[in-house]
């Protein structure tokens, strides 16, 4: 077990180093840095969705909560002039607060019904952005959600610069993944998985299932809200359509293709599928179709997802070694 932990640590450190050096690795090609930012945001969304999954359910309201974070931060900036540094946190908080309120009735439903009820929640959130035109700008969306500048005295950083924004979003994404990873490997994480395995049994061994569910959902939605705020300040434009059901669906697909049992799964899934989607862009007609083929092929041919690849390689290696 010890050497496994070491291998994991090495893998994560390696990933972090690559991520830190990435702008230099792609020779500061601004477009590839854009792709990298998209990847970080997708990783954050998929990982926080996976956190909910560790309790055994899937939330399709995730894009909606991402939207709450995005809209909060965007409106604070465009209507009140409050900069992104506050907007990021307030957006996350707002998203968490609404998640807390919603989750109390929502947690009455279970399994597939939760999945569908959360989808209704997500859809209502999106529709509200469109319906209250004066407040949220309706379908028109919100423009000019500029990122902030920072003055460190000796140097001034403008986050409209893509490399700067990349490091900003990398920082937050690393933070999100770290939070989820630490929670997952703690005693709380074990409680989550015990709920995942058998809710009734967990209840009887003294886990307050309802409370844990509400807390986990709220935390995950807070992180989704943070992701949303980051998304808004990067895109500088948001509309209700930015947070529709496909956003949740793709996050789910990232989780499934990556793997369901470790936090490495959604990270691997989001990174690889975002790259695949980008590579397919020039195929026009065939883009959506190829993406579907990749998705089905991974699920059928690689049960357990990308996260099982190291284990498979190791087994292959050991077998041929003997």
């Amino acid at each position, binding site marked *: 077990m010890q050497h496994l932990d070491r291998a994991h640590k090495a893998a994560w450190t390696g990933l972090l180093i690559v991520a830190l050096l990435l702008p230099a690795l792609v020779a500061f*090609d*601004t*477009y590839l840095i*854009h*792709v990298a930012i*998209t990847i970080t945001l997708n990783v954050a969304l998929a990982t926080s969705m996976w956190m909910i999954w560790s309790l055994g359910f899937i939330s399709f309201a995730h894009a909606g909560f991402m939207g709450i974070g995005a809209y909060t931060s965007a409106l604070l900036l465009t209507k009140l002039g409050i900069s992104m540094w506050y907007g990021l946190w307030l957006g996350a908080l707002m998203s968490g607060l609404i998640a807390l309120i919603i989750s109390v009735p929502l947690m009455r439903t279970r399994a597939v019904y939760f999945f569908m009820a959360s989808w209704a929640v997500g859809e209502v959130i999106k529709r509200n952005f*469109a319906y209250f035109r004066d407040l949220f700008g*309706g*379908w*028109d*969306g919100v423009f000019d959600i500029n990122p902030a500048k920072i003055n460190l005295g000796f140097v001034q950083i403008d986050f409209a610069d893509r490399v700067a924004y990349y490091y900003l979003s990398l920082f937050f994404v690393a933070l999100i993944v770290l939070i989820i990873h630490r929670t997952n490997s703690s005693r709380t994480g074990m409680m989550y998985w015990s709920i995942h395995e058998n809710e009734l049994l967990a209840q009887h061994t003294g886990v307050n299932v309802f409370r844990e569910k509400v807390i986990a959902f709220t935390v995950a939605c807070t992180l989704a809200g943070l992701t949303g705020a980051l998304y808004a300040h990067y*895109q*500088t*434009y948001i*509309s209700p*359509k*930015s947070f529709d059901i496909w956003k949740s669906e793709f996050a789910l697909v990232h989780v499934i293709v990556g793997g369901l049992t470790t936090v490495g799964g959604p990270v691997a899934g989001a990174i690889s599928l975002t790259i695949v989607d*980008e590579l397919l*862009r*020039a*195929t*026009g*007609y*065939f*883009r*959506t*179709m190829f993406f579907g083929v990749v998705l089905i092929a991974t699920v059928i041919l690689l049960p357990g997802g990308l996260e099982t690849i190291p284990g498979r390689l190791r087994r292959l290696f050991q077998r041929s070694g003997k």
Partner: protein
Amino acid sequence: MNTWKSKSPPSLITRRRLLRTGTAAIGGALAAPAILPKSALAQTMPTIKIGGAVPLSGPVAYWGHSTMQGFVDGAAVINEAGGVMIDGEPHQLEVINYDTKGEVADSRAATLRLVEQDEVKFVYSQAAASTVGMLQVTEPANVLSIVACWGYLQLFGEDYPLHFRAEMSDYEQGFAYIPYMQDKYGKDALKTAAFIGPDDQDGIDCHFSYQRLMEYYGIEQKGVEYFNWEDTDFYPIVAKTIRDKPDFIVTSPSPPGITASIIKAAREMGYKGPIASPAASETKTILEVAGEHATDVILPVTNVSPSTDTQKAIEARFNERFGSFNALAGNYSWWIYSLKAALEMAGTATDTMAVAEALAQVELNDTYVGKVKWAGENSFGVNRQGIYDCFTTTIDDGVAEVSDIRFPALPDDY
């Protein structure tokens, strides 16, 4: 082929047509990446790249393909004829297309790729969402954009000097089809109107155009209804609209299928007035869906029967190259010729501002949509809106035909 009249017996050629369309589509798409590497000719000649960030997959792919076809076909024609002459030197045109799925963020990404990786100076796009995404990239990067976009007027005009809107919106079309309707039905028969549009920004923007038009022509406005894209049945929305008994209904921008459903519902519930739809150019669809109910339908900018040599040539070429042709693709086919004229007039392919200024002056006389020019100086401060002959098709008693061709009678302050 997309005209309503399939005079040849349908069962004879359909299977072959189906096969041909399929193979052409697959072949075309497989050949699409082949556009990317420079062709043999291009190696000897300097190349001007034109980038498309258009929806090629997803629900709005129809519009994306129609736009792309005009550029792919036009570039081939221009290259064959010797290319674009800049300072006496011929340049080849190269068209690069990326899919946007019709989403804002995706369109921004596609445009970034065009501008930053492919170093394209001229881009085109289709529909509001892709345009919004594109504009955030192109203007700061000094890239010229030509789009079809009806709404988001705050993103148009003096602040966006490199941004051209080639397709006439429902507003400009109105100065052709409303006078025509007044000729046809008489002014007294068209005193009140109602509006039906989709519940999104396009619908809201089109309602704004409609409001301005109705005020200009002194027509009283009755109900305004928005449908959801999720809606399947249009009985409820139409029932609500015709309750106020408007003299005619404008539905915009409703795609052909929805327009047809609206017409069918209205006629079934006994509504007799004319229905105008400035976005539904597929007469065949409307006839198939609405059947005998398709009557008193007004479809502006829809040329279902190409008549001039240029129009016939475009139809033939598109059929050969893409396996099909529709009036919408015809409407978009002049953009690239206009750009070519501007490049030659400006004498540069790098100074986009000079090209933009030249483009605003370009007038073409023989395109698929007849006479074309750029206008809008008095209302937007710059001539960036394409205006052209409006071919209005009408459907009466199940027969579709081009009933009117007129250049929009724009008000003086336009």
